């Protein structure tokens, strides 16, 4: 025996991985020493008609038949398959299998790498990923639940007036934003609040809740929209909210077929009113809330007549950015003019759909709109 032949034999028998050869149906015809040492079988025990499938745990056996064997038949080589081998003493050995199918003679050759530590590490990674996915799902659910609390589940029914609200969170809705709106009955009529808390995330959400509930409670003591917004300003400063808020607040009082709308603006884009072919802003600019101890706010009173439509919105609408630049107020005026014949919910949907489409379906900021429409 030459030195080279002896070296080959020794290389096979004592290779640093298990070697195992089978017929195409898996019947084991040859194994090396390393494999016997890894698995604890005696020489001859594995080559007496046993198949490689019998060496595998049952789940892995199904995987072998449904994935491994077809792959091997189709591409003659399969790599890095993780399975458990059943040892002679009944314990399991995690291994990685590589295999090649040879045509002449028709045999399958397997390399068997013991992989106990690596598989344990991979299981750790898998568990970590599953934990991360669970946490992510919980965080998303939390964000959506919080967000839902910023807008009422339904707007009030008001005789002689259609009202509709629409909201679309930024991105895919994973990050809770600061847009909110609300509408409810008061002693004199109805109140409408719509606003935007600066920033996103949990801290912004806390301020958004504070703003919404302050605006709900304030009208009981405060007579006018500007006084309600001033009360919110005091609360934000007193609570050291640390974030500024823009808002529009209006009071609606029915009068025959008309409605009288008194509204005040605090750093917020003025609502648009469509009357006939004309679209115009209503309200007078006022200071943003949560920054200054004293704010300058003005109440403006307008009459809403049959056929009129009023659009309240947050800056996520006009500051939407797409391939054509900023969406802007001009586009919004045009859209309101074109859609003023629709019912209130049709107009609200049209605005949100157009602004979302303008940003290729993925808005960068929250979008909130409320539409009032007196049927003509």
């Amino acid at each position, binding site marked *: 025996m030459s030195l080279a032949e002896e070296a080959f034999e020794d290389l096979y028998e004592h290779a640093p991985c298990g070697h195992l050869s089978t017929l195409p*149906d898996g019947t084991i015809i040859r194994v090396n020493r390393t494999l016997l040492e890894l698995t604890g079988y005696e020489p001859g025990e594995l080559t007496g008609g046993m198949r490689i499938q019998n060496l595998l745990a*049952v789940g892995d056996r199904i*995987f072998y*038949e449904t994935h491994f*064997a077809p792959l091997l038949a*189709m591409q003659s080589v399969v*790599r890095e398959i993780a399975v458990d081998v059943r040892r002679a003493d009944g314990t399991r050995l995690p291994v990685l299998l590589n295999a090649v199918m040879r045509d002449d003679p028709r045999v399958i050759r397997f390399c068997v790498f013991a992989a106990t530590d690596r598989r344990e590490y991979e299981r750790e990674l898998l568990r970590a990923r599953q934990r991360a996915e669970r946490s992510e799902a919980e965080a998303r659910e939390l964000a959506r639940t919080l967000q839902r609390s910023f807008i009422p589940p339904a707007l009030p029914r008001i005789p002689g007036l259609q009202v509709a609200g629409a909201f679309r969170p930024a991105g895919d809705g994973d990050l809770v934003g600061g847009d909110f709106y609300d509408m409810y009955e008061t002693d004199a009529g109805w109140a409408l609040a719509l606003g935007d808390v600066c920033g996103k995330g949990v801290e912004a959400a806390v301020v958004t809740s504070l703003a919404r509930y302050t605006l709900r409670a304030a009208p009981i003591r405060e007579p006018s929209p500007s006084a309600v917004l001033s009360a919110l300003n005091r609360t934000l400063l007193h609570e050291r909210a640390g974030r500024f808020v823009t808002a529009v607040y209006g009071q609606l009082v029915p009068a025959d077929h008309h409605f009288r709308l008194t509204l005040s603006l605090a750093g917020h884009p003025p609502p648009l009113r469509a009357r006939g072919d004309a679209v115009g802003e209503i309200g007078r600019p006022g200071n943003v809330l949560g920054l200054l101890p004293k704010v300058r706010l003005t109440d403006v009173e307008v009459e809403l007549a049959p056929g009129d439509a009023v659009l309240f919105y947050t800056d996520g609408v006009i500051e939407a950015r797409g391939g054509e630049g900023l969406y802007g107020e001009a586009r919004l005026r045009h859209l309101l003019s074109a859609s003023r014949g629709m019912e209130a919910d049709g107009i609200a949907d049209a605005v949100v759909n157009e602004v979302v489409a303008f940003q290729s379906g993925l808005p960068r900021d929250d979008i909130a709109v409320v539409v009032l429409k007196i049927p003509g």
Partner: protein
Amino acid sequence: MSVMVRNNVRITGRPDGRPMVFAHGFGCDQNMWRLVAPAFEDEYRIVLFDYVGSGDSDLSAYSPERYSSLQGYAQDVLDICAELDLSDAVFVGHSVSAMIGALAAIREPARFGALVMVGPSPRYIDDESYVGGFSAADIEELLESLDSNYLGWSSAMAPVIMGNPDRPELGTELTNSFCRTDPDIAKRFATVTFMSDNRADLSRVPVRSLILQCSDDVIAPVEVGKYVHENIPGSELVLMRATGHCPNLSAPEETISAIKAFL
């Protein structure tokens, strides 16, 4: 999304021939038929496809609700039949597809003229005196095995696999590609397959049926093949010399001649 793209439908063979639909089982895709289907091209109109969630199907069409039972997969088959306006088709189903074909034939008998079931099992888990070959714990183990063997699936590869090849250089390196899909979908398909119980449907199969049973098949043992044969009225059973679960790959000649003899 058209059904043709959604299910990666491939049509070959004789355009005016009797339709012959080949359906893959759990694990891989229509490539499972590459050694068998060509033998029927001279006479039949061959229809190959991937179920949604397998092979080159449109993964975005996968919905856990629709595919929560084998009926959802049967709907894929019926959608394809409707799209191609098939009638009197020969349906050749491997593994779980044998039962999917049976369910489709029960729902729309006029579409099918013959059913070839390769390694069928109406229920994989033992139940009192019925021997399916597996316990529920075995199936849990399979799900773990699928978790450890993502077959090269990773978030970096997903865009390539889902048909958005911004990185064509990856395309040539796709190993294990015939049997790879999103591991989450694979696990759901495994659960639906191995938890199914369609024993009660067997007696309702309305078409001529052939059962091809391998010797030594750990997925569908001989007793299960005999059970299917005894419960489908008028069915034929052929015990093959081929071993394992995939005679369509390991013994294509024997598979082809058994199907030809039946037809």
